[in-house]
């Protein structure tokens, strides 16, 4: 075992670096889904569509900024702007027009409403952006690479992926934690997450909280998409594969738990990159193995609170 580590230590180090970079993106998408689920108790399948639309919108805004003659550094705020735009437009629209009508329904109906929305948005996105892969990699080129030593060799990494993405994820995590625990709005959201009935009984306007949270969640989804744009080409179907992974994160993390989402994202990201390095065959099933293992030990998820049924 010690031998194995001395031999493969450097490789393991590289895998950790890759894992952290991919965990950052996984976290960005999953945390929004988890937040929305915690407050609205609606498992939003259309979160994947918001991710995809955010990604495409980021590319469009980026191209527009470039064609308008803005300097290359403007591509970074362009990503953020695109995500805000998507979240602020689509979030309230979806919440007001659709979700609001179904809060009192059974969970399966709520889930299917978002599933239907997902199907509609999937085709709508095709109508707007077509089916040819779209890519916008200016931010990655802009930020260049950092060389990581590996034995006598060096491995170049994208600064964007190993520095900026994890930094954004950490800022989001810390910012969210402070927002939820220290500000009044945040505490209200937290109160609704923990006990909706008690919170409404205390006079909290749940509808307002729902609207706010959903819009916020939509922005996080779109931001996740926007942040993935510089490193990957956008094609139809990216929303579908994103949402399955995010579901696994939510169930593993525990409902509404942002720290849980962060830890799960890290486990999945690092687990996958270690798998790619040492057991490539396992890469695909890593998230599910982690989820099943966690739920075997902790049936309520990593950070889930056991809901005591009052009798």
């Amino acid at each position, binding site marked *: 075992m010690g031998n194995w580590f001395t031999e493969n230590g450097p490789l393991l180090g590289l895998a950790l670096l890759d894992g952290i970079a991919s965990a950052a993106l996984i976290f960005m998408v999953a945390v929004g889904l988890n937040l929305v689920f915690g407050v609205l108790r609606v498992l939003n399948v259309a979160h994947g569509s918001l991710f995809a639309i955010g990604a495409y919108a980021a590319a469009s805004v980026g191209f527009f900024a470039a064609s308008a003659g803005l300097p290359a550094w403007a591509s970074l705020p362009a990503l953020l702007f695109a995500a805000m735009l998507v979240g602020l437009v689509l979030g309230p629209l979806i919440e007001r027009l659709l979700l609001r009508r179904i809060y009192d329904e059974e969970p399966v109906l709520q889930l299917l409403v978002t599933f239907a929305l997902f199907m509609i948005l999937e*085709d709508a996105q*095709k109508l707007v952006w077509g089916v040819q892969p779209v890519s916008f990699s200016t931010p990655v080129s802009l930020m260049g690479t950092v060389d990581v030593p590996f034995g006598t060799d060096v*491995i170049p990494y994208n600064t964007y992926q190993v520095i900026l993405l994890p930094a954004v994820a950490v800022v989001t995590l810390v910012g969210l934690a402070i927002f939820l625990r220290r500000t009044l709005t945040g505490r209200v959201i937290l109160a609704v997450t923990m006990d909706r009935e008690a919170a409404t009984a205390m006079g909290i306007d749940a509808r307002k909280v729902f609207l706010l949270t959903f819009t916020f969640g939509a922005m996080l989804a779109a931001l996740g998409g926007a942040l993935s744009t510089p490193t990957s*080409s956008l094609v139809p179907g990216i929303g579908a594969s994103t949402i399955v992974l995010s579901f696994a994160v939510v169930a593993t993390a525990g409902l509404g738990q942002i720290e849980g989402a962060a830890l799960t994202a890290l486990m999945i990201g690092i687990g996958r990159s270690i798998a790619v390095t040492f057991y490539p065959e396992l890469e695909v099933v890593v998230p599910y193995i982690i989820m099943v293992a966690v739920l075997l030990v902790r049936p309520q998820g990593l950070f889930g609170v056991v809901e005591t049924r009052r009798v």
Partner: protein
Amino acid sequence: MPLPFQLTRRTALAAGFGSVLLPASLSAQAPVQRPSELKIGVTTFLSGPASVFGVPGRNAAEMLAEEINREGGIGGVPVRLFFVDEAPGIDHLVGEFRRLVQNERVDVMFASISSGSCLACTPLGEELRKVTVLWDCGTQRIFEERRYQYAFRTQANATPEILAPLLYLMKTKPDFRTVAVLNQDYAWGRDSWEIWKTAMDALKPGTRVVAELFPRFGATDFSAEVTRLLALRPDVILSTSWGGELDTFIRQAAERRLFERSTFVLPLAESSLERVGRSLPAGHIVGSRGDHWHQHPRPANPQALQRFVENYRRRADAYPIYPTYHMAQAFSALRAAHAKAMQANGGNWPSDAQLAAAFPGLEFDSPTSRMRIREDGQGLEPQLIGTTVHTDRFPFAVMDKMVIFPPDLVTTPAGQNSVAWLRTLTPDMVNRVPDPISAAG
């Protein structure tokens, strides 16, 4: 907006129920008369990741159908197209195939981009006795595992499409010792690797495979894989990936200078060249699943190729990529077969069986060369492979030092199993590879 939508839907439903009520036997076995239109069913990807190929295929089909109809149709009859999306799965596809054959009464089916779809459709076409043209799918299994009377492929298959790049690599950069592969984790990715590995073991024994990476189909990030490849420094990296995944892989590899460490062999990259722009550096090997390239060095009919390229660019605002050429080949073969069958039938409209009988041995024009369909139904298509170069004329990498592999060099002989045939190859095969042609100015 909603009103016309509802109207079309309602009429469509009405038409559908009309056909439910109409006894199907009315027009079943009537003597073959010249129909008012020649109906072609086309199965292609209209949603999901593979629509990267499916939609250009459809665009080409619509463009070609319009051209044919302007010129008076096939055998004097205008063609009409029916499209089916392959994405929802085999049960939907097979149902639609039946509907088109039994209800819409299409005259011929152009089946499938996905090999799985082809493997499901081909036997069905045979059972329904309907001519099925395999227009794009790559699996070599179809004609090697069974004989068909109604199914024909108007392009090559996976074996020449992978063998040609390998031979090209051996001819142009013979000194490689280590190889890594990164393919999509699905049938094509696995099959193409098996073909490459088998051929390489026969043609260049002793080459070491240092990594076999098969990321999930639809993956959007290859950072961990790129890291692994950077650390391993293989001489050659093979990837038969395509679409968004190939674009992503090329960009991520380029950003992290992987192209400086290894020679890439990308047998499908012709379809990504325009999109990835100058991200793809010079000096790497690119293929196009056949004999297609808008800057083809020796087209049989330069005017025809140029017209095809320009018409397609006007329509789709992009250079044509291999599925559009494959679609053109399918149409061209159908026209030729139809003419041949009519001639054999004394100028009368051919039956399904007569049309099918015209395909074996058929010769037809592709946009770049003259092609033939072998007796077993397999199309014989040359393979064009080249090395990337950056020029001032195009904002993206183009091919240079192109080799056009003749089909008889790289295609498995009829009646043989590809893997078994590849095992019999010998290293001196590389001496029979034609010399490279440089790109014209």
